[in-house]
């Protein structure tokens, strides 16, 4: 098993919310803080658009 996926699997197993898991993913990808916030906002917008449809 890949080490990264192992680490991801372990850390995500500690949380249950979908948003938490996304955060774990971004942190493990070593994205900087502004990029993480930007990504979260974009995702929220997409979700909002999908809800409208």
């Amino acid at each position: 098993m890949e080490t990264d996926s192992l680490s991801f699997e372990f850390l995500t197993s500690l949380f249950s919310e979908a948003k938490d898991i996304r955060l774990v993913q971004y942190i493990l990808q070593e994205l900087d803080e502004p990029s993480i916030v930007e990504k979260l906002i974009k995702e929220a917008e997409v979700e909002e658009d999908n809800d409208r449809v």
Partner: protein
Amino acid sequence: MIEYDYELERDEQDVINIYRPGRFPKELPNLVFIEGPNDSGKSTLLNVIALSCYGLKNNYIKESLQKNIKKLVDSDRIKFEVKITNENGDVELFSEKPSFDTDEIILRNKEHKIIAPEQFEKRYRLIYDIPENPTGRLGQLLIDIRDRQLWFLMREQALRAYLMRVIGDIKAARDPDRIENVRNEIRDFESRIEQGKQNVGALEERLKETELFAYVKYYTNYKEKLEDLKQGLKSLQKQEAGCAIRIGKDTKELKELCNQLSDEIDLVEEAFFEVSEELENVAAKKDKSRLSIWKSINVREEFLNPDLKKDLKIEGQYFLDLVEKRLSIIEHADDVQKAQVYRDLLDLLNHYSNLEIEIPAANVTISKFIEILSEELEKHDAVLAELNRLTEAQEQLVRIIQKREHAVVNLIPKIRELGERTETTGEIMEDETLNFQIAGVKAKISKCQESIDYYEAECLRIGLKKNDIQTLYASMVMGRALKELEHYKESELMERISDIKIEIRKGSQQSGKDEANLSYLKDELSKLEKKEPHKYHEHLAYLDETLQEILRMERQLNTYVSYMNQLVAKKIDKKSEPGRAEYQEKVFSYLGKRVGRIKYIDNDYEITKIDMIKESIYTTSGKRIRISDMGTGRGQLAYLTGLLSSSDERKIIALFDEVAMMDKEALELICKKLKALHKSGKLLLGIIVQVAEAEKWRPL
């Protein structure tokens, strides 16, 4: 490929020797297995590579190996060059210690830029190990997980701090909603100020009218009363001129009766003055002539000559009938009855005004109900005041008539009889009663004059000349221009004036406060409008919500760190903690996945979890293997496999020394693991060293 060279100067007491690489080539592949006898330089090679990769600053390298690396610079003197190229043939790391005399190690990357120890540690993972107590060291994998978890917590905290800063920036930036709110507040204040000004204006108008009415009315009334009192005084003084009244031997009784009569006259005079005010309101046009007769009555003269003067009795009865008739109409009017019910209800409810009880059917709280009733009652103020005044007038007229009757029937005949008796005996007594009466009337005159002076001064204050008072009295009081004020007594009017003044003062103070608030809000609006909006403004609510989630995660992570510390220290808190067992299971399962497979006796097992509390390894086949039952080589294999399955992005530089105690199969598994890592680009360099009789090397 790794290219290296070094010179090691060692003081061996009798001689200083220089050692250089010689038994092994200076160029070796990235994955290499080296064998050789003791002191052939294979461990020195690993120590030099570790030193070149900041091994002295690596806390994960065990103490015995750290000592060996340190010896190279402390006891010996060394200079070296180590160059590691990657699978593409590019130089990835170049490290050198150019002379014996410098302590400085210069490590450069492929761009030839110097990498500091912290930067190196961020990009590379140096694993330098030697088999030793592998059972105990399997637990060190926990430290690896703890560090990874702490790193994650640190990144999460940095994200939380950044998010808080962004939210703060958004709030400090231009906020259209806030601007709209401030504009609405400004509109509200402007409207309130305007309304307040109108209210104060209306109150000032009402105050002007009420003052005018009250001051003119009472100035004139007191003037008339003063005239009456002066007349009464004259009459008494005339009697005094007769020096004394002759009275007989029953002097004491006569004196008491005279005092009684005088008291009765005083009381009737007082009631007469007060009721006359109300009668002016009650009297219709047809009653004007009767009112003139009433006003011309001299109470004292009528009491002293009841056989000749009977106006007080006749006119008193006439006006009593008139008042009672009016009272009967008012008492039965709907709004008066309504007002009386409201007043009774208010008296009762005021006892419970602090209770938050809702009144059934009305669906309002007691305090709200009191407020509604008070507003309703206020609408009936004037008619209630009239009712009170008429009731009082009725009582006073009854009192006047009864007291006159009592004087005429009881007091005066007795006084006369006693007077006649004393006349026959010729007894004379100083008339102290008369002096007393004169003093009383004089006191009343003085009091009356004070009131006149007060009202005159007030008239002047509101810009009314003395000569105009009479004219205004005719138009405002007699002409009934302000009908609603007619029913108020003097004290009630004064109270009303004082209340209106208080209301005006309150209104002005409120306006002042509103003006200050308005000015502040206008400044605030101007500042807000000058600001630029934040690009994330419309996402503020979402970011706030995200911040809360991150804070929740942080609390959870801190709890997990404490659970992990207990595992590492092998001191599990006895008290039960929520989620701890579940967390431990996750850690054990993760450990199992990191080590993957294990050889035990002659079989190969897939691990499901490694329980570090029970110190047991569980396999998919349902086997439980105690860690302590595993041979050193097997334990070492499990440990090294776990070490190589590190969970980050860094490239590994793996140096394994003295692996002889591992069996061939275990060693092969390690080599297999190294190759897989190298193939996936995760391993930059892998060197395994073993003691053997002959020096040889082979690529893995």
